């Protein structure tokens, strides 16, 4: 006797905002009528914090304090114990997406040390002999658009051997001059990061120019905090010995789920940075870092 349980959301993109109603159907498909001990549906929003292994030693003491933060939780009983007729059964449901008190619904974010996730969970209890059925379905929450106007704050940069820090032998460096600009460091998350980079001059041919998107996650509390930067994605914008003094566009789409508007709370922080990485043919690696502020409008 096979039965499948599924949750179907009305919106194809599964994106909801605070104050909206999450609507959909529970879909039950079985060949014959099905006895059950009740079907329930729950919605939950959680922030999961995790400590990186390198930080564990230091923060063992308050390890326990890093427990999931619940943002939203509600539960409804969809059906009392009884029978579901054979065939396809659709049970519609609706959840209002609103918080109690002054809690804020953060935007969905899948990171390494910080995870903000919203799920719907449907449980079907059954008799002792048959296993209970469960189904999870993630939906995505976009936080409310920022009210204040976004000031793009463009930035220009020039990279030469002299502007570099963290180098051992400045004299061993080949000569180069790379200029460029980012159109905005205050970025709208739904719009790409844009700008230009110009190789004005380089003694050694360029091998590659890359954009490295980095997340900086900070977990902590009063006792202290752990800050970790990890790569989200690396996008190559130039390959090979590019033409000198020709503007090469910087263009990067912020990946969904892996980015969210820059977030700062009492317990954790999610920030983003972009590195412009220039690899020279002799494998010299030149990196220029730009903190970004992401927001949603």
């Amino acid at each position, binding site marked *: 006797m096979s039965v499948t349980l599924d*949750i179907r959301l009305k919106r194809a993109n599964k994106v909801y905002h605070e104050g909206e109603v999450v609507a959909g159907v529970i879909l039950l498909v079985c060949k014959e009528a099905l006895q059950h001990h009740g079907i329930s549906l729950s919605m939950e929003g959680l922030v999961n914090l995790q400590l990186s292994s390198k930080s564990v030693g230091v923060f063992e003491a308050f390890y326990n304090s890093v427990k999931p933060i619940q943002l939203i939780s509600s539960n409804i009983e969809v059906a009392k114990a009884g029978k579901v007729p054979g065939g396809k059964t659709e049970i519609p449901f609706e959840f209002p997406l609103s918080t109690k008190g002054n809690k804020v619904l953060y935007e969905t974010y899948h990171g390494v040390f910080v995870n903000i996730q919203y799920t719907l969970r449907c449980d079907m209890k059954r008799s002792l002999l048959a296993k209970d059925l469960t189904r999870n379905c*993630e939906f995505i929450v976009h936080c409310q658009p920022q009210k204040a106007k976004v000031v793009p704050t463009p930035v220009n940069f020039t990279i030469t051997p002299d502007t570099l820090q963290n180098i051992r032998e400045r004299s061993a460096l080949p000569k180069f001059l790379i200029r460029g600009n980012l159109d905005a460091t205050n970025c709208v998350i739904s719009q790409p990061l844009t700008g230009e980079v110009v190789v004005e001059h380089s003694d050694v041919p360029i091998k590659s120019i890359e954009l490295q998107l980095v997340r900086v996650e900070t977990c902590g509390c009063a006792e202290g905090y752990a800050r970790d930067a990890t790569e989200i994605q690396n*996008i*190559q914008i130039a*390959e*090979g*010995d590019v*033409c000198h003094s020709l503007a090469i566009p910087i263009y990067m*789409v912020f*990946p969904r789920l892996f980015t969210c508007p820059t977030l700062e709370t009492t317990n954790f922080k999610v920030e983003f940075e972009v590195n412009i990485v220039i690899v020279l043919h002799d494998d010299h690696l030149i990196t220029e870092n730009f903190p970004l502020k992401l927001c949603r409008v």
Partner: protein
Amino acid sequence: MAAVQWRSRMRNYEAELQRCRPEAALVEFGDYHPLKPIMVTDTKTRRGARKGSTSSSSSSSSSAPADPLSSMLDGTDPLSMFAAASASEAPVMSHSASTGDLGRKRKEKSEEAVGLDFEPWSAKRGEILARFTTTEKLSINLFMGSDRGKAPSPGSSAVSEKVRTRLEELDDLEEGSQRELLNLSQQDYANRIEELNQSLKEAWASDQKVKALKIVIQCSKLLSDTSVIQFYPSKFVLITDILDTFGRLVYDRIWTMCSDPRPLPDSFTVDDVNDTAKETCLNWFFKIASIRELLPRLYVEAAILKCNRFLNKSGIQETLPRLTAMIRGIGDPLVAAYTRAYLCRVGMEVAPQLKDSLNRNFFDLLGTFRQISGESVQNQLVQQRVEVPEYLTLYSPAINWILQCIAYRAPEALLTEMMERCKKLGNNTLLLNSVMRAFRPEFVAARATDFISMIKDCDEAGFPKHLLFGSLGRSLACADPPESERLTILNEAWKVVTKVRSPQDYINCAEIWVEFTCRHFTKREVNTVLADIIKHMTPDRAFEDAYPQLQSVIRKILTYFHDFSVLFSMERFLPFLDMFQKDSVRVEVCRSIMEVFIKHQVEPTRDPVILNAMLHICKTMHDSVNALTLEDEKRSLALLIIGFIRMVSFGRDFEQQLSFCVEARATFCNLEPVLVQLIHTVNQLAMETSRVMKGSHSRKTAAFVRACAAYSFITIPSLSSIFSRLSLYLLSGQVALANQCLSQADAFLKAAVSILPEVPRSISIEGKLRSSESFLLDFINNFLATLLVVPDHPEHGVLYLVRGLLNMVQDYTWEDNSDAKVRVYVSALSLLAAMSQETYLYSIPKVDSNETLYGGDPKFLTEINKLCETLIGQILDHLKTLGRDEQSTRRQGTLAFSLFGILLSHGDLRNNKLSQLSVNLWNLSHKHGYCETRISVRTLECIKHQAQQPDMAHLTDTVQRLALQSRT
């Protein structure tokens, strides 16, 4: 029965003819006539016009009968309608809603999409693949994550997990199992790519979208590999095929997602697309945006550019410039140029109206041009041992394509601007070449002198100059430069062309310029060009590798020179032909010359130059025939040669013509149809002579026609087909008779009779064995008809030839169960009856037939009658034999009836015995009821009618004895 006494009925042919002739009725011009064509004088104006042209005065009905064909169409016929529509774009066909719509749609299309005049990529594809080849070993480097059970786990439906696994899988490509295929030949490489194309389709069909994307990404990654650089253009072609497939698959998939409940219209907008489809589409774009490497990201996004239509209106418009700009990040100029070509190609397909990004692409290309001379590129060339000129040619397909896209329906000003920009870059040869290839020929032609000077200014080390002149020549072949400049252009161009050292390069270029030369200049210049080609191609037998080009030269010359006297008076034309030393090619060339000759030579010629040359050409074709030549091939060659022979006429110089035929016979002895044609020609010649002499030959002409006869007489035996021999003997005999060559005629006819026994019982016709009987019967009847006028030979007995023929007929081994022999006898009876008339039905002027020779001598008549009696005896014997067998009664009936017919029309039925015989035959033919009643009735009617004539009253008697069997 045996003692039948034959008397031929005396006939007065003149009177009979008069009786049979219908009364002539004059038809006034303009009257209705059934055969008068129905003319629709005006197709544009409807009604009215049609009425007048088809109305008939004989028709009394009030309304004129409408032509059923034109009445269907309400005036205008569809063909002329289309013609009108295409001639002037104005839609004149408003009265027909559907066609009007069609026209409008088409008009719209031509504005927004690419018209037919745009040479599509598919046309270039093959050329590139054929041109850019390599013998070096290639390698494919694929980092395909080995399918380590990443099949989507059905349990989790969480978006995050799905996306994560997918992204992980994408990442896998980098660290995943590396599959490197080394040492591939070019063909292997193409096969591998095709395999990948197949596995892409399979992956897609089995819903493994991630795998499909992986394949595409890996393939486009191959395009960043420029080792074995000579092969790069071909590699580009192969791999972009895969990208095209992918783009189509994705587009179609999203398309079908929206096709519920009904398919999207072609001109759908974003609002017609449902959310799921949009989400899927968006997913693709996000996925592609996260591809790490630049080149695959660019290519794959370009491949699915069209899908932007599902998301928003301006998507394509925004994406194209962005992708264009992103290409700047590609360091290798060759890779970048081809990426641009691909982007232009996709752009042209999806949004041809967006010209800006095309131009942008080109300007960027110009901007990065200095890279070619840069260190990285030069190092690479040294490493791969590729010369700069060769390297530069690798660019031409890409740049040509980009320029072609730009130049398509572009305003003149833009083209001029483009050219100026190229000039500014120090006459970059590569660009110059592409400009000449891609821009409208008219544009190029008008500035031909400019171009030449630019080419001359170019530095020698760069792009090969002969290619530049080749491109220029190609444009000039389609469009005409100003008249005054033409000679200078040719001189300048040829100066360069003639200096090209490699024969292959030389001929490639020269071949193009031949067209220009032929188009605008006389034979003198063409001759010079030919001489130059010969000079270049002869050393080391270089022509052996250039047959296609040389053939094309000939073809071009033939297109422009239709006057063969001019053509052959070019001194170098025949020596040029001599370069075709491979048999098959030579024959093909000859053939093409002959085809043009037959098509364009309208007047018969006697020009010795033409004749000599053509004979030479025809002889070449003839000599190519050997035992292995196919029948069809022989036939077509023979047809061509015959076409030539028919075009030869020496006018009044008959002797010359005959001697030409003699020569031709010697030359073309292997092709029978040609010999047959020669015999016909000679016979015609004899008749022509006779016509000129108005029937009476002088001593000289008499000798000449005898010579003609002799020619035929000795030619015919060399034919293998027995029936052509027979009919030619007969024909030549007739011609000889007409020219009063009695002994020759006799000889011909005798020869015909003597080979009769050789006729096989079955002959092969179109590959099938068929009985020859009907052909033989036809021939014999024809022969008998001729014998009427042939006078008896004084040294032989009376009716020598008739007897001879009948003897042959008797001895011939006819098919079993055949009445053919007897049917010949029946026909012979008619002949004999005709011979016993006082004046014959027909005669040949100036030839005394037997009527005059014997003057109705009773002895002669008795001879005839005796012969007739023998024949009738034979026929009756045969009838009796037939009667014995049940199965042959039908044949017996038919035969009896035909004999009855002969008796009736040729026999003198006043004779009782004959009359009795005819009645018996009638009865015999009706005995078994096989006779068709209708024919019997009509026969009776005819006899009754005849009986009313004077001297025929006796028939009344006979008629009464002919009983008509009713079928009861």
